[in-house]
């Protein structure tokens, strides 16, 4: 139990995917200018990340490893991810067109959210069980969602600030991310993975 908890805390905070591991940065920068879209993106990513983490794990251990095809893992994983994302996209499109419009290009880009493939590959390296893989994916997604949502709130706040012109927009967002990452350094050493 504590192990599972540690995995969650470890992935969500200490080795936060976005701020410490540098994964999933594009959606982090791209979908964070509005809190609403950030929340939508968080949900979508959490879903995709957890699901694809488990699916990749299964594909690897049930298909690739028995056949000695480890080197095909990248292709196989990315296929799994793309399919999960595509599937999610269709469902979201049907269920909430506005969310779909808002997430726009970012929903397909969850495919290329490195975090998703990153989780799949990192779980492999850690040699975890299915449950651990799911937790790992979920923890990573929670970490991603947490910083994404907080960052979005921060950026909304920033929208009213009197930022010097060259820094408006992406530049100050990057610098904000830098300071956030600095703050997250405080968690370093909390849980060793």
């Amino acid at each position, binding site marked *: 139990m504590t192990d599972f908890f540690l995995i969650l805390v470890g992935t969500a905070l200490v080795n936060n995917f976005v701020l410490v591991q540098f994964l999933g940065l594009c959606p982090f920068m791209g979908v964070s200018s509005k809190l609403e879209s950030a929340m939508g993106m968080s949900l979508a990513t959490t879903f995709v990340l957890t699901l694809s983490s488990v699916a990749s794990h299964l594909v690897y251990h049930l298909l690739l490893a028995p056949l000695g095809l480890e080197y095909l893992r990248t292709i196989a994983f990315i296929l799994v991810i793309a399919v999960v994302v595509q599937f999610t996209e269709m469902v979201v499109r049907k269920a909430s067109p506005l969310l779909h419009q808002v997430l726009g290009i970012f929903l397909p880009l969850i495919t290329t959210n490195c975090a998703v493939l990153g989780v799949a590959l990192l779980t492999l390296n850690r040699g975890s069980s299915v449950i651990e893989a799911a937790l790992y994916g979920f923890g990573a997604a929670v970490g991603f969602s947490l910083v994404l949502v907080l960052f979005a709130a921060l950026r*909304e*706040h920033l*929208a*009213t600030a009197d930022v010097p012109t060259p820094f408006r927009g992406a530049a100050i967002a990057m610098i904000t991310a830098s300071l956030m990452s600095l703050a997250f350094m405080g968690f370093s050493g909390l849980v060793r993975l």
Partner: protein
Amino acid sequence: MAERFDFPGGITPPTRKARATRSPLCTPPLPRRVILPLAQHAGAPAEPCVEVGQRVRTGERIARASGLISAALHASITGRVAAIEDHPLPTADGRRGPCIVIEGEGEDDWLTLPPLDWRQAAETTLLERLDASGVVGLGGAAFPTQVKARIRELHAIDTVIVNAAECEPYISADDLTLRHFAADVLEGARLMARLAGAERILVGIEDDKPEARQALEVAREATLAEAVPVEIRAIATRYPSGGERQLIKRLLGREVPSGGLPADVGTHCHNPGTLRAALAAIRDGVPLVERVVTLTGEALARPGNVVARLGTPMGELLGFAGLDTQALHRLVMGGPMMGEALGELACPVVKATNCLIAATRSELPDPPPEQPCIRCGACEEACPASLLPQQLYWFARGREHDKAERFHLFDCIECGACSYVCPSHIPLEQYYRAAKQTIRAQRREAARADHARHRFEFRQARLAREQAEKEARRAARKRAAAPATRPPAGSDAQSAAPAADLRGLRIAHSAARAAERKAEKALARAAESGEADPATLEDLETQLATARENRQAAEARLQAARDVEEKPS
């Protein structure tokens, strides 16, 4: 003083009332010339009903109410109408607006209406009289009292509140009104209680006005026998207890719902001056031509309260009180918290003028330059509406109107308590006012756009219908011209297509019919509820017309297709 109910926040600025309450109420000489703005009340401006050059008597109606919410205007001196033209209005932005100017004859020849007994007269008579007398709220908003008094039609009222809080510094007009006319005020309150069907009267008065309270007690003792009981409750002095929402909360513990009216919680709130004016209009037949105005400020040698004729140029009135123009630094109409700084001495006294402050520079210094907000939270502690003023400020500055609304911008009563305490001297409520006006303008534009779209859709539908009908006629003509000719060999392919089409058309037709019925229902519902304004109704009518056109177009097309269908058979 422990009170049962209270509102959060509030401030206690220095009251500075003493200078003007030392001397009794007095009447300045009649002005030679009065300027009466047509728009000195809430709602639509009044419409002049006199000609230039016409002689008018004091109390004679010179402009009539126009529209649902509006008020009549009366000559406040006897003389000739010199002009109907634009004059500076008593507003901070120095706007000009249409006014009726009366050149006085020096005498006071009254034209009053016949007295009425308010206990006996029919309610409609009373309301008509209020309407005819141009009585509006004298507490600040100048809302037509007649409209307000119709409350019974929509709401059940149990309490009439007399708002004698007078919480702003400097102002003592209500204080003096009560000292001199407490009995009239209470009788006015009874009159309102009758109109509203209330069963009690509650007077809320701040504890810094012991004389007024004493006078009220005396008047109350004298009328103990009356059916509607009067209760006088002193409350600790704190700004803005006089805001009706805050007063109601403080006296009764009830909260007026956001966007609602005091009537929604069974109360009806009036200023003492309003009550006295309403009583005068009914009991004595005297329309609203004068009011109590506090003249104060250190640039005045003889501050005090005066009964001033409406339209008196402020300079004249202040001159009467011994204005030292050299020392005058700022002229404020109303209190220092919510009042407006004026740029001219020539502005006339209007119905909403309860106080004129002729302040010296040291008394009300220029506001220091605005500094950045440091989010210190002082404003939040002062806000009587529990808003987060600093957030509203950021949103207003950043023009993030949807977020400002999300943080309840429209619940701000613009009391200025937040600006008062702000260490960065930010004129916060100016930001809110600007944001509110922008939002209102945007809403208006959005409604316009919606309306335009509906009209555009209607036109499209109409054109489509005309087109479809034309085609249907052409098809019919064709059939009539060649009834017997068999279709040529290739017609199989042709007739197959209409058959499929026909089904589609039929579906389209029934959809159009459903849409029409829906639009009809929406219109009927809106019309019945009685709350929709004419613009909305018109909009719904347009939508209904569009649906009709669509249905007719579908019908025509269907008919044409049927005609083609039937032809080969």
